[in-house]
C-alpha cells in the first residue's frame, strides 16, 4: 500500500474531516508528513486557534496492526524514532489541545533505515588469500551491503554495530588501500560517508618503515641491504617495493651464443647481478629454486649446458610451480643430470628396465618429499605414530615408465631419432615408440591409462604430483628457510602453504604470491622492531655465497664480471653452480649438532657446511675483504668508514647501520673499542686502520654470520 493510500485510509478510520471551518477551535501540525531516519530526530510544531490556553499534548502510535515501537515524542514535539524499524515503517504523531483533547491533528512519519556509520574496520590490513573483514560501527540493518572498493560483498549482518564480509586478497591487490562503505537498504537507503579504507597487505604504509625494519627486510627479500635500497624501502614501504620487484626486468644471464664455453664468466656474472641487479627478489627466488630443483656443474660443467637451466629458473621464479615443474622436467640439462633424456623403455633382449633416477628425485626432492605432511609441514602419523610414506619403490618404477621416450631437442634440419644428439636448446621431445605405454599407477592410486603416448602421460603425471597436498608445505617451508629463517613455526608454514594452495584467485602454485606471503608474514617481520624481544631460535646462518654478496652490498662494493667471488665461495665450501649432488650443498633438515645448541634442537641447513675449519676460513675471507685486495673485479669502499676513524662512536654506528640494521649492542661496541683503542694516532692511515679493525670484528662475528 502506498503512503498516500495509507494516509487516506487512516484518516477515514479516525472519522476526521480533512477541512474544517476557520473559526472553529483548531489544532494544526507541521509538517503533516515527513521522512525521518532512525537514529535522528525531528521536531514537529503545532498551532492552536480558537482555544485558550493554546497548550497541547503530543503522542505517537503505530498504525493499527503494526508491531514494534513507535519511538517517543516529548512535550516540545521532538520526535525520536525507535532504534528498530517497526513493521510497516510508519508512525503517527498526534498533537491535541490540552483544553479539548478532541481537537487534534495528526502527522505521518515514514521511518527510514538509519544512516550507517563505520567506526573501524578489522583487520586494518587484509592478508593475502581469504579472510573475514569485520566492520564495526552503528546503524547497520538487515540487508546492509558492504562495498570494498567498488565491489559489493556478500554481507553477514551480525548486529546493528557489526557486519562481516569474506574478502579475498590477491597478489595484485597487495599494497592497495580500498575504501569501505556500508549501504543500508530502503526505505531511506543511505551510504556511509566516512573516509574509511582497508589496506590489502601488511603494516608498511610508506614512510612508516623504520631503518631497522627496512634493512632487515632486505636481508630476506634481497641480497642484503645497501644504503640506497634501504632508504627506498623506507620511502615506499614493503609492499610497493615487492610490487616493484615482481615487475622489475630480469638481470641478464650472459646470452648463450656469446658465452664462452667455460662457466667462470657465468659464475662471475651471477655475483655482479646479485650485488648490483635491480631484480633482487627474482634473483633470490631463482637461486632458492635452483637449490631445490638442483642441477650441478659437476655434471653440467659448461655454459651451453648450464645456462639454459639458469635462465629457466629466472623466468619461472615468479610464475606457477606447475609450469616450473614441467619446464624443469623437459629441460635437457635436467634430463641429462637425472637421466630422463634418452630413458628407454624396458628391453627384454638386453635386460634393462627404465631408469629410476628422475622418477625418484622429482618426488623426493622437487615436489612432495618422502612422507605425508600436514599443511603446516609437520608429519602426518599413522595409528602407531609412524610417518606415512608418500610412495613406494613400486611407485618409483611406475613413474620411471612415465619418464621414458624423451630425447634431446631435434636440431634444426635434423631428423628425430630415438636418441637425438646432445642439444640443450629448447625442450626435450618425445619419441613415442620408446615410451612405455602400459597402464601406470601413480600417487594416491591415480591410474594413467594405457596407450596415451609420452606427452599425455607426462601431463597427467605432473598434474598428479602437482596436486598432491604435500607440495605446498614441502616447497614453501624450504623457501621460507632460504629467504627468512631455518626454523619457521608450523603456523607460518601453514599460512604460506595456504597461499600456495590458493593465491586468493583460486590459483594453486603462484610463486610470486608465495614469495610475498613469506616476506610479509608476521613471523618474518617479528624481528623488525628492535625494542621487542626477538625469538631466540630465529634466524639463519648466511650461506657462503650470501655472506659474500651481502658483505659486498653493505660495503658499497663495485663488482664486475671479472670478480673473483666464486673462488672465495668455493673456498668456504660452496662452489657456485657445483653442488656435490642433487642433495645440494646442504639439506633442509640438517640438525645442528646438539653439542652446539644445548637443550634446543635446531634445524640449521647452512650449518652443514659450517665446519670448524670452514669457520676459520670465513674469518680469513673477512681478512681478505677488509685488509686485502680482491682485485679489480670487486672493489669495496671503506672510505666512508675510514673517514670516521677519528670519531669512533660514529664509526661504530656506521658499521651498525651497514651490517646490523642500525643496532649496536654494547658487547659489539666494546669489542670494536678494544681493537680501535689499541690503534694510536690521527693520521689517515690510523683512521683507516681503526675502521678496518672494527669492520673485521663486525663481519667475522657470529652476530653477523647469523642473520636474525
Amino acid at each position: 500500500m502506498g503512503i498516500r493510500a495509507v494516509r487516506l485510509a487512516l484518516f477515514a478510520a479516525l472519522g476526521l474531516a480533512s477541512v474544517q471551518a476557520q473559526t472553529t477551535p483548531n489544532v494544526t501540525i507541521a509538517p503533516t508528513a515527513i521522512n525521518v531516519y532512525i537514529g535522528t530526530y525531528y521536531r514537529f510544531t503545532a498551532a492552536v486557534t480558537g482555544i485558550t490556553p493554546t497548550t497541547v499534548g503530543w503522542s505517537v502510535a503505530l498504525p493499527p496492526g503494526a508491531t514494534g515501537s513507535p519511538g517517543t515524542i516529548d512535550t516540545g514535539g521532538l520526535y525520536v524514532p525507535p532504534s528498530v524499524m517497526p513493521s510497516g515503517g510508519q508512525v503517527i504523531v498526534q498533537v491535541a489541545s490540552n483544553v479539548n483533547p478532541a481537537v487534534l491533528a495528526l502527522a505521518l512519519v515514514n521511518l527510514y533505515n538509519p544512516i550507517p556509520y563505520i567506526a573501524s574496520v578489522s583487520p586494518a590490513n587484509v592478508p593475502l588469500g581469504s579472510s573475514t573483514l569485520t566492520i564495526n560501527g552503528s546503524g547497520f540493518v538487515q540487508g546492509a551491503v558492504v562495498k570494498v572498493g567498488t565491489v559489493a560483498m556478500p554481507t553477514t549482518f551480525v548486529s546493528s554495530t557489526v557486519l562481516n564480509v569474506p574478502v579475498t586478497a590477491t597478489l595484485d591487490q597487495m599494497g592497495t588501500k580500498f575504501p569501505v562503505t556500508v549501504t543500508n537498504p530502503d526505505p531511506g537507503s543511505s551510504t556511509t560517508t566516512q573516509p574509511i579504507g582497508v589496506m590489502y597487505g601488511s603494516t608498511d604504509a610508506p614512510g612508516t618503515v623504520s631503518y631497522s625494519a627496512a634493512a632487515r627486510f632486505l636481508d630476506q627479500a634481497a641480497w642484503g641491504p645497501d644504503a640506497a635500497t634501504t632508504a627506498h624501502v623506507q620511502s615506499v614501504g614493503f609492499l610497493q617495493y615487492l610490487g616493484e620487484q615482481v615487475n622489475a626486468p630480469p638481470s641478464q644471464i650472459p646470452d648463450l651464443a656469446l658465452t664462452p664455453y667455460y662457466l667462470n664468466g657465468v659464475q662471475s656474472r651471477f655475483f655482479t647481478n646479485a650485488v648490483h641487479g635491480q631484480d633482487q627478489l627474482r634473483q633470490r627466488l631463482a637461486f632458492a629454486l635452483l637449490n631445490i630443483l638442483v642441477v650441478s656443474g659437476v655434471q653440467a660443467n659448461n655454459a651451453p649446458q648450464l645456462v639454459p637451466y639458469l635462465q629457466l629458473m629466472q623466468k619461472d621464479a615468479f610464475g606457477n610451480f606447475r609450469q616450473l615443474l614441467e619446464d624443469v622436467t623437459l629441460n635437457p640439462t635436467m634430463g641429462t643430470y637425472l637421466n630422463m633424456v634418452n630413458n628407454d623403455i624396458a628391453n627384454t633382449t638386453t635386460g634393462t628396465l627404465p631408469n629410476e633416477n628422475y622418477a625418484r628425485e622429482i618426488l623426493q626432492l622437487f615436489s612432495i618429499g618422502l612422507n605425508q605432511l600436514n599443511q603446516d609441514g609437520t608429519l602426518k602419523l599413522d595409528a602407531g605414530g609412524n610417518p606415512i610414506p608418500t610412495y613406494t619403490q613400486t611407485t618409483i618404477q611406475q613413474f620411471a615408465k612415465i619418464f621414458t621416450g624423451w630425447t634431446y631437442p631435434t636440431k634444426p634440419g635434423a631428423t628425430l631419432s630415438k636418441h637425438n644428439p646432445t642439444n640443450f636448446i629448447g625442450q626435450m621431445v618425445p619419441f613415442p615408440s620408446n615410451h612405455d605405454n602400459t597402464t601406470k599407477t601413480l600417487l594416491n592410486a591415480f591410474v594413467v591409462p594405457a596407450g596415451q603416448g609420452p606427452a599425455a602421460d607426462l601431463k597427467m603425471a605432473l598434474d598428479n604430483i602437482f596436486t598432491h597436498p604435500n607440495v605446498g608445505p614441502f616447497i614453501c617451508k624450504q623457501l621460507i628457510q632460504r629467504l627468512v629463517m631455518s626454523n619457521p613455526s608450523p603456523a607460518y608454514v601453514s599460512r604460506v602453504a595456504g597461499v600456495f594452495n590458493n593465491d586468493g584467485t583460486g590459483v594453486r602454485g603462484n610463486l610470486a604470491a608465495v614469495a610475498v606471503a613469506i616476506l610479509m608474514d608476521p613471523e618474518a617481520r617479528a624481528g623488525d622492531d628492535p625494542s621487542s624481544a626477538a625469538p631466540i631460535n630465529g634466524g639463519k646462518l648466511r650461506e657462503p655465497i650470501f655472506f659474500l654478496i651481502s658483505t659486498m652490498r653493505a660495503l658499497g662494493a663495485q663488482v664486475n664480471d671479472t670478480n673473483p667471488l666464486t673462488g672465495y665461495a668455493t673456498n668456504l665450501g660452496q662452489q657456485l653452480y657445483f653442488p656435490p649432488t642433487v642433495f645440494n650443498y646442504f639439506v633442509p633438515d640438517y640438525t645442528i649438532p646438539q653439542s652446539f645448541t644445548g637443550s634446543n634442537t635446531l634445524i640449521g641447513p647452512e650449518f652443514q657446511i659450517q665446519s670448524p675449519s670452514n669457520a676459520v676460513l670465513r674469518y680469513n675471507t673477512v681478512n681478505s675483504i677488509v685488509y686485502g685486495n680482491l682485485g679489480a673485479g670487486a672493489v669495496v669502499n671503506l672510505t666512508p668508514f675510514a673517514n670516521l676513524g677519528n670519531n669512533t662512536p660514529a664509526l661504530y654506528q656506521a658499521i651498525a647501520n651497514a651490517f646490523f640494521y642500525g643496532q649496536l649492542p654494547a658487547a659489539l661496541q666494546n669489542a670494536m673499542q678494544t681493537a680501535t683503542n689499541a690503534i694510536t694516532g690521527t693520521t689517515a692511515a690510523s683512521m683507516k686502520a681503526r675502521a678496518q679493525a672494527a669492520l673485521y670484528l663486525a663481519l667475522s662475528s657470529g652476530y653477523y654470520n647469523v642473520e636474525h
Partner: protein
Amino acid sequence: MRINTRRDFLKIGLRTFGSLGAASVVGKLSQVNALAQNSCPTDYKALVCIFLFGGLDTNNVLIPINTPTTNANNSYANYAKIRGGLALPQANLRQINANGDSYGLHPNLTELANLYNTGGTGTGKVAIIANVGTLVRPLTKSQYQGPGATVPSNLFSHLDQQTEIQTSYAQGNGTTGWGGRLADAMQSCSSSKFPMVISVGGNAVFTTGSQTSPATVTAGQVLGLQGFSTSAANVARLNAVGNLLNFDNSFTMVSADNQIGANGINQSGLLNQALGGAPTLKTAFPSTSLGVQLQQIAKIISVRSALGANRQIFFAYLGGFDTHDAELNTHATLLPQVSQAMNAFYTATQELGVDNNVVTFTESDFSRTLQPSGGATLGTDHAWGSHHFIMGGAVKGGNIYGQVPTQALAAASPDDANTRGVWIPTTSLDQYGATLATWYGADPGKLATVFPNLGNFSGPLPAFL
C-alpha cells in the same frame, strides 16, 4: 704483556677462546665419566672411514667367478647374463680367491687386489666383507616381502641411507654417528685437547657423538687465522675476536656459530703447532681428491704424539658413485682413485710404523641394482646391501667375510628384495662396525651404546680383525 713469538701469541689466543662455555664443558665431563672405559689402552690405534658417496655398485667391484664352495649358483656366466652391457670382461678382472672359490675384482682395483693377495688367505692386507647394509634386525626375503617386517626406513633414498650407515641406526633420523659414539665411549681414555674424531670430509654425522664434536681439516688449506701479527693492535683485535665469540645476544644460532668458530680457531692452532714438528712423508700420494685427503690424514697420524692422541677416528670421502648412467666410464675414473689412494695410505702407515695400528674401511649409501637401467649409456638404480674393503696390517686379509648374494633376479635369488637384484643384507652395518670398534678397543659392554641395534643380531661378529 710483551708478545715475543708466534707461539706465545697463539697461546694467548687459545686461552682466550678456551674460556668459552666452561660450564658446559664441566657438565660434559661428568657425562663422559659415566661412560668411562673399564681399562684404557696404552697403544695407538686409528680407524679411517672412507665414505663412497652416491652408492657404489659393488656388483662390479666383486664378481663371483667360480664359487662351488660357498655358492654353487654363482658363476661369471650368470653375472654376465644379467649385467648385459655392464658386464666386465672376465679376462680383465683382478683374480682373488677366498675359501677355495675364485672371484674377480674390478680391473681398476689393481692395488687393492695386490694388497688382498699379499701373503694369501688370512694374511693379506685387505679383506672384503660381502653384502653388508642397513638392517634393524635380521631379515629374510619372505619376511621382507611379507607384512609387518621391520625394514630400514626410506630404503633407496641416498640421504636416508647415508645417514643410517653413518649413524648405524636403520630406523632413521639418527642424530649422532657411530664414529662419534665410539669416540664418546673411549673419551675417558684420552687426555688430548685435540678431538679424537677428525674429518677431512667436512661435517659428517658419522663423526658427531653426544659429547664428541669433530675437528675438521680441509686438506690442502692453510690452517689458522690469517692477518694477525704480534703488534699490540693485532693482539687487541684478536682478544676482541675472543670476546665476540662469547656474544650471542641470546640467539641460539649465533651461539652455535660462535662455538664452531672457537673450535675451529683452537683446533687449527693446536694442529698447526703439532704439524710444525711433522716428519716429511716420503710416500707419494696421488694428487686426487681422496689422495690429498688420505695424505692429510697420514700427516695428522704422524704428529699423534704431539697432539697427545692414542686413539683417532678419521673420516674421508669420495663422491660421484651415483651411476644411473655411464657406469663403466665412471668406475674407470673413480675406482683407480680409490685403489691408488688407499694403497698410498697403507704405504704411508708402513713408513710411519703404524701399519698394524691403522685400519681403513669403506662405506657407501648402498649398492645398486644388478639389472641395468636403460639409456644412451647404461647405468644402475639404487639398491641395498653392498661389499666393502677393510685394509690394514691388523686385518685378516686375503679373505671374504659374510655371504656373497646369489647373482640372479627375483625368485631365482633368495637375496633379491624385489626383481632387479637388490640384495637384502646378510650382515648388518652394526656387525661390521662392531668388529672395527672392538679392535679399536671399545669395551664389549659399550658396543650396545655405539650400535643400538647390535643386540638384534646373534652369532659371532665378522672376524676380519
